[in-house]
């Protein structure tokens, strides 16, 4: 049985359909990347999955258990989703008034009520992992974009999510800084984390993902392994997209 399953995820704003019939499943430890032209639903897909937007249709299951059914989303469902998924934003959204370490510790402290000392040790270990242990006491404003994004990843990891989602995590970064963030994501893949990454980094999508989802016209254009999509694209749209992306 698949680890993460979603059926017919869909969303419309008024009369405009922004996401339609996305059905797919993912095994534990797999990494799914989502590619496609801008405005074709990549970010909407990820935001709907995380209930940052309210989907109109769709059922999502994790480990065989229902996370939510779009026809009946209540507080409980939102709680389950936010516990199950971690989310890393394109623009980081660190809390500016807190140090890096405080950013990482805030949610476990107030949401899970974890005791301070073990949490601090755990948080420092996470910062070590993303290469920020030296900067634990700095405020976000003093960090580079890449450092901020790595801090945001540590903050998401601190809640121990089942699936970690990235919404164009490197789109706001210079090429150099992009690589340091992608390196961290690859490290997490090696640890066996299940992840969904919306990205424009084709090289990364090709060599890091297990499954690639190509979104076109706000629905699934193609889905498959990197070899299938990059090696033998079936649709004109994907062929054109890959040419442009090169």
């Amino acid at each position, binding site marked *: 049985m698949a680890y993460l399953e979603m059926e017919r995820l869909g969303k419309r704003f008024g009369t405009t359909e922004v996401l339609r019939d996305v059905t797919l499943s993912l095994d534990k430890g797999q990494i799914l990347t989502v590619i496609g032209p801008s405005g074709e639903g990549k970010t909407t897909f990820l935001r709907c999955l995380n209930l*940052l937007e309210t989907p109109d249709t769709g059922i999502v299951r994790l480990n065989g258990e229902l996370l939510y059914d779009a026809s009946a989303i209540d507080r409980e469902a939102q709680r389950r989703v*936010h516990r199950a998924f971690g989310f890393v934003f394109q623009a980081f959204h660190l809390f500016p*008034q807190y140090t890096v370490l405080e950013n990482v510790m805030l949610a476990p402290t107030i*949401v899970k009520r974890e005791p301070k000392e073990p949490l601090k040790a755990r948080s420092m270990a996470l910062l070590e992992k993303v290469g920020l242990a030296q900067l634990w006491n700095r405020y976000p404003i003093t960090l580079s974009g890449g450092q901020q994004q790595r801090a945001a990843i540590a*903050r998401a990891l601190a809640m121990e999510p089942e699936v970690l989602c990235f919404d164009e995590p490197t789109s706001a970064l210079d090429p150099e800084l992009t690589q340091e963030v992608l390196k961290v994501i690859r490290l997490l893949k090696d640890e066996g984390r299940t992840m969904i990454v919306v990205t424009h980094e084709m090289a990364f999508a090709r060599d890091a993902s297990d499954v690639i989802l190509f979104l076109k016209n706000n629905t699934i254009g193609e889905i498959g392994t990197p070899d299938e999509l990059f090696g033998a694209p079936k649709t004109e749209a994907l062929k054109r997209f890959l040419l442009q992306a090169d």
Partner: protein
Amino acid sequence: MLGEVLVSLGNGFLQSLELFGLTLLGGLPLGLIIAFGSMSKFKPLQTAVRGIVWVVRGTPLMLQLIVIYYGPGLLAKGSNFWGGGSGGRMTAAAVAFIVNYACYFSEIYRGGIESIPRGQIEAGRVLGMSNGQIFFRIQLKQVYKRILPPIGNEVITLVKDTCLARIIAIYELTYAGQAYIKSDGLIWPLLMTGAFYLLFSGLLSWLLKRGEKRLAYFE
């Protein structure tokens, strides 16, 4: 003479200070409640609150002061709503000032809260925080930083607005100074009240600057 004037002005200043303190004590929290009302998703409440803010900000404080002090007694003939003497007058003045300033504060709060990027709220949400946690642990300090300068402006204005309370015969600082024109034909005690206002607002400006500096470490 100078000693006598200083004592008299000092007493007037204490009255001004009392009104100043009561207004901030009541107005700052009430303003936050009004701000939430004016941002409410429940339309009737939002409209009602915004209507009140419009009336209060759109009419003179002096007018409000007179209506609040004399109104209850006129409505219910002979009743003594505010209680007798200077205590009753101070209560009425404090109520008028608190409501008036709370409306101004509420608009500052509202602007501050609405100016916090949505991403901050979403970041809290995906970490599983409740709305209350997001407001108190994430937004509040950022709001506080943004609103400190405009709130400071209002506070400085309030220092000088306290002199309006004389209209219901509160013996505040300006009243105390002006009294010497009538009784002794002296103008300098009135000019001296200016020094009181200047020193006090100077102290407040300095405190506000310090507060802003302490919040300068984040954006």
